């Protein structure tokens, strides 16, 4: 135990002494939160749209007004020429073109179908889907109101009753993208700090040759790994606390669940994350390689964690593979606790997987670590 403490103390002194590392540990999280939470957003507002109105009727103007009043769309031009609208789509000025065909109002005067055309610039990827769903909602609300107006003029007919469909957005009623991203970014943050510092640290010992010196001391493999991991584990926990404080006080991100539970899950998760760092350190010889390889491997882990895009949207085989990804489970836990207010029973499954993962990582790291240089 004393040996572990000595080695751990040496690590702490190293970190505190090296200003660059200290800055990395203390400034990076804040910076990352600030930039990522603002830049990493798929929020869609003010979509520029173009209107081609062939009908020029009260009905077509009503429909267009609904688009501009929704707040999702900004009408940048109205024209009677489809060519001009195509041009706007091609040049990227418009993301959507709404075309109201002639006789729109006449068709609406009686039951039946009145089509309108929506051309969405799908070059904008994820945005295109959401733009389409906003537009479709506006059109269908318009349709309902038309039918309501028609119905209210006549007596209610049996069998023609309509459904009221109120809608609730749970957990994020104002659809704030930042509230969604921050709990995920916190995970990315502790993961990056944990893995990068661990990998870099051992790579440096290799580079300087001090790893050999440690190898000839009576310290055991388990002691060595524990002493190496402990300081970084603590640092990452501190980073999580800093990140949470920034999220709470600077961004006013709601936190519904128990922070204690989150820290408990983080304590287990970090063992797994640091284990990844250890694993990387066995792959590399120099600090530069450590950074490069960590960056590459983390990139894969983070992209497959559901941090940026929903797990549910992934191809089925990717989703299956992502079960092996500890980052995915901690992202799930973090969001479930902070955003949804989940308690221990609700996060039991991902937590159990993390525990298994952490134990396995630790066992492998201790076995893998040879007290010799290759």
């Amino acid at each position, binding site marked *: 135990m004393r040996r572990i403490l000595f080695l751990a103390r040496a690590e702490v002194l190293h970190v505190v002494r090296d200003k660059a590392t200290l800055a990395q540990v203390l400034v990076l999280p804040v910076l990352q939160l600030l930039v990522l939470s603002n830049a990493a957003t*798929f929020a869609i507002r003010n979509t520029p749209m173009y209107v081609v109105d062939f009908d020029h009727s009260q009905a077509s103007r009503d429909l267009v007004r609904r688009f501009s009043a929704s707040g999702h769309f900004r009408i940048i031009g109205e024209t009677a020429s489809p060519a001009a609208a195509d041009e706007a789509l091609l040049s990227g000025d418009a993301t959507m073109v709404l075309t109201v065909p002639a006789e729109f109002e006449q068709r609406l005067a009686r039951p039946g179908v009145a089509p309108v055309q929506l051309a969405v610039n799908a070059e904008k990827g994820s945005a295109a889907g959401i733009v389409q769903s906003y537009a479709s909602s506006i059109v269908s609300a318009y349709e309902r109101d038309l039918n309501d107006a028609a119905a209210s003029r006549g007596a209610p007919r049996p069998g023609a009753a309509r459904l009221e469909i109120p809608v609730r957005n749970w957990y994020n009623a104002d659809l704030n993208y930042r509230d969604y991203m921050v709990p995920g970014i916190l995970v990315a943050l502790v993961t990056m700090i944990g893995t990068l510092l661990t990998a870099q640290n051992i790579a440096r010992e290799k580079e300087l040759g001090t790893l050999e010196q440690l190898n000839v001391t009576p310290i055991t493999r388990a002691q060595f790994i524990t002493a190496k991991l402990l300081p970084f584990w603590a640092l990452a926990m501190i980073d999580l606390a800093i990140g949470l404080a920034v999220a709470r006080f600077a961004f006013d991100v709601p936190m519904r669940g128990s922070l204690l539970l989150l820290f408990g899950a983080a304590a287990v998760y970090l063992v797994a994350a640091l284990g990844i760092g250890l694993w990387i350190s066995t792959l590399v010889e120099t600090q530069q390689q450590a950074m490069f390889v960590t960056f590459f491997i983390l990139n894969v882990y983070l992209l497959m964690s559901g941090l940026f895009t929903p797990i549910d949207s992934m191809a089925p085989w990717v989703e299956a593979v992502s079960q092996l990804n500890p980052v995915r489970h901690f992202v799930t836990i973090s969001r479930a606790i902070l955003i949804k207010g989940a308690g221990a029973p609700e996060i039991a499954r991902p937590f159990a997987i993390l525990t298994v993962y952490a134990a396995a990582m630790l066992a492998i790291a201790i076995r893998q670590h040879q007290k010799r240089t290759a």
Partner: protein
Amino acid sequence: MSALAGLVRKEVYHVLRDRRTLVVLVLLPAIQVVLFGYAIRTDVDRVRLAIVDPAPDAATTALRDRIAGSGTFHIVRVLPRADMLEPLFQRGDAQAALVFEPRLAAQMGRGLPARLLVVADATEPNTGSILQAYLVAAIQNAERDLSVPAAKRVLPQVRMAFNPTRESAHLFVPGLMAFVLTIISALMTAISLAREKETGTMEALLVSPLRPWQIVVGKVAPYLAIGFASALSILLEARLVFDVPLRGSLLLLVGEGLLFILVSLALGILISARTASQRVAMMGTLVGTMLPTMLLSGFIFPIESMPPLLQALSYVVPARYFVLVARGIMLKGIGLTYLWRETLVLSLMAVALLALSAHSLHERLE
């Protein structure tokens, strides 16, 4: 000239000798394309739907069957009470819920309005909106089929221009090219020049008969080749695996790619000229070129949604222009008539950065 060839050969040896970095350089583009093609998607399908039906009757069962039959939804659980929903949502077992009120059939039979509550997990706001829109649309369709015989319909006919299936690979490939080109051109160049400085061999190069431009050319040539090969391999993989279209001119795309590589290389040289160690050069390139390329180029996240400050910042990110150009050429099939502005900006950047980096190398000579 033979001196230059010698320098190039030495650089090639450096690259080939560092196996781990080489492996990453070769694997990176391939893995990224697969990841972005299969993992980075935002489509919503096979929605896990929970249903709260306190008193099942003819109307609720009919609606349920309709919605289950639509193919988009897959009913995970039918609950008797609404307060049982929360744990299901918290565990992520359900993404959306439909809450019927009791006596739905009776209400409808009498021609009275009946309530049907739609709950969507809006943790991820976009998915939430889409879930909600899907579910409301499904209910309305069912309602139309089941009860209202003659109603007015406004039917939106949607056309997804330039990428009808919204295949995510089609969108990410241009951005990925920018990303990989940045990593290889800027990062590797910066590191390789910084290494010469760190080990003191830069001095040796500077006193050699090689002219500064020859040093630069010799240093960057291998990375230029690797960058170019990666970009082409991404294009090829994208074409073979994901069937990504190339509607415009390949020649123009290659030309613009070269222009972008030039800008990135100049950035790499500039960064290395201003830094003393490999580590600082690496951090500098990470923060100065890679993160902006990832975040501010519009490659993953829409620029229009960012706060004004970040939007303004995105104008100095070269990748922003390259992504626009590459997407334009590949997906829209447009040429310089539409893309001259972006091309001009990239050219100006290239000229300015090359001049700056040549200048900083000269400074070191004196």
